[in-house]
């Protein structure tokens, strides 16, 4: 891509949400609006390298997209005429044709909401929802999405085409859920946003820069959702969770890319702006009565770390209680394992070991390396060195990540040295 292309893409990306939402309103069809928004980009890429980026690129893109939309409406009218449904078509045109200019000045809130809910429709496969959301809400190109997800471009392109066809064919291309359906659909939206975030959060050193950038796309999506749905507590909870997690990004790995665990992280590298935003989002979720939500509880746990100036200052008793609430809401052996870690810190290793021994029979944790690494840690603190060493070895043999495996082997070896 040339510099000129990158500059054009940047200008288009800023204009993209308004373009797609106003076209969707005009055409009553989100997937079609997305096609036309892309066509406006293609037109810009054709014209602007010669003419330069216009002073008001927004207006240029809008006019171009509008022309394309009107062309489309005329074509559609012709088609419909053939089928002798002239009256219907005219009626539809009357509703939709004059809309665009006023639509551009209007608040795009409702349309944005519709866009988000359409892209994250539960009828679509999960991967397709993520790809469609990145494309329709964030304005990423198919090539960028493919790079970010380490997937072949053709695969992503096909995923997007198929998803848009599914939406169009099942008549889901322009609808907003209301009432009880809304909360169910909202959880699908939040799930997609969190999936995108975690994909970015798992990026390793040396990865394409677009991968970690997914975290920011997810954050932007959550903020955009909150801007149009400010009273959804779990949206605030998820935003808080992501902001607080992302705030530690710089402290999570060392120069060699090896993971640095929470107790050893340099808290000076934590992003204060992001922590402040995360705590604000959490406070918002709690003020709206959503303290007990799935995402809000997880955010509250991380907030305990964010608030602690030093590891030793961590409010473990509160973390234990929050994990207890999380378990009640969403029972899972992984959450219980995390609760055990907190119990170990708040009440001592012996109390945590009791929980862990209960968890050993759990089929889901049978080959989960962290169960053994946590147990090894507790046993080491209790002075049961031989058992601890054995557990660290088991953990190492179960870990799939090379860096983690090496770290666990080092811990096993460290116990030998002290024995």
């Amino acid at each position, binding site marked *: 891509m040339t*510099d000129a292309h*990158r*500059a054009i*893409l*940047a*200008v288009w*990306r*800023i204009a993209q*949400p*308004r373009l797609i939402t106003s076209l969707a309103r005009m055409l009553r069809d989100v997937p079609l609006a997305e096609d036309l928004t892309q066509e406006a980009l293609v037109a810009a890429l054709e014209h602007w390298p010669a003419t330069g*980026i216009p*002073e*008001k*690129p*927004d207006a240029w893109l809008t006019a171009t997209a509008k022309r394309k939309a009107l062309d489309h409406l005329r074509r559609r009218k012709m088609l419909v005429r053939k089928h002798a449904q002239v009256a219907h078509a005219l009626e539809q045109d009357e509703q939709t044709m004059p809309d665009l200019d006023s639509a551009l000045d209007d608040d*795009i809130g409702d349309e*944005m909401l519709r866009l988000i809910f359409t892209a994250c429709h539960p009828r679509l496969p999960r991967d397709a929802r993520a790809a469609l959301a990145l494309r329709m809400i964030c304005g990423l190109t198919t090539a960028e999405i493919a790079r970010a997800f380490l997937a072949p471009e053709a695969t992503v392109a096909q995923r997007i085409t198929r998803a848009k066809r599914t939406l169009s064919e099942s008549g889901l291309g322009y609808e907003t859920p209301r009432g009880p359906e809304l909360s169910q659909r909202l959880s699908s939206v939040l799930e997609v946003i969190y999936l995108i975030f975690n994909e*970015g959060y798992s*990026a*390793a*050193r*040396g*990865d394409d*820069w677009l*991968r*970690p*950038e997914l*975290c*920011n796309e997810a*954050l*932007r*999506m*959550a*903020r*955009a959702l909150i*801007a*149009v749905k400010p009273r959804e507590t779990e949206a605030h909870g998820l935003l808080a969770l992501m902001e607080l997690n*992302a705030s530690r*990004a*710089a402290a999570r*790995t*060392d*120069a060699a*890319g090896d993971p640095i665990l929470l107790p050893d992280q340099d808290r000076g*590298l934590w992003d204060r*702006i992001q922590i402040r*935003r995360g705590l604000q989002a959490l406070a918002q979720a709690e003020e709206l009565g959503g303290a007990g939500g799935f995402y809000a509880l997880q955010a509250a746990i991380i907030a305990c770390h964010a608030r602690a100036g030093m590891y030793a200052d961590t409010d473990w008793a509160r973390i234990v209680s929050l994990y207890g609430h999380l378990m009640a809401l969403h029972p899972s052996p992984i959450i219980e394992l995390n609760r055990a870690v907190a119990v170990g810190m708040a009440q001592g290793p012996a109390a945590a070991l009791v929980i862990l021994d209960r968890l050993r029979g759990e089929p889901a944790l049978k080959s989960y390396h962290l169960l053994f690494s946590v147990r090894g840690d507790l046993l080491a603190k209790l002075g049961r060195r031989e058992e601890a060493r054995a557990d660290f070895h088991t953990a190492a043999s179960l870990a799939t990540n090379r860096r983690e495996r090496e770290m666990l082997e080092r811990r096993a070896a460290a116990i030998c040295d002290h024995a």
Partner: protein
Amino acid sequence: MRVMYLVKSNHPGPPTPELGAAIGKLTEREVKAGRLLDQGGLMPISMGAEVRIADGKLSLIDGPFVEAKEVVGGYAVFELRDKEEAIAMANEFMQLHKDLMPGWYGTCEVRFFATPPHNPHP
């Protein structure tokens, strides 16, 4: 990447109402898009002060003093994709000044936050 914009000018006088309104709309749009993290205007430097070290000596320069150079009148912090996006945003912001406050002159400095060298998350 995180970007700070510093708007510098020594053009006297507050923004025209039209410019103020347009900046307000832009700000709202960017908050809703999730890109704008923080922004604000600054009072004239004549109402502030400067603490300076020159020739190894610390000195306080307290206002009021004459503003001869371009000073920072406002700032904004954005989370953006890349340098191109950062420049596009600055262009849009400055275009508003050109259109809605004739005679205004100044600079919008685009500055990227420094990140630790081994941070995979820029």
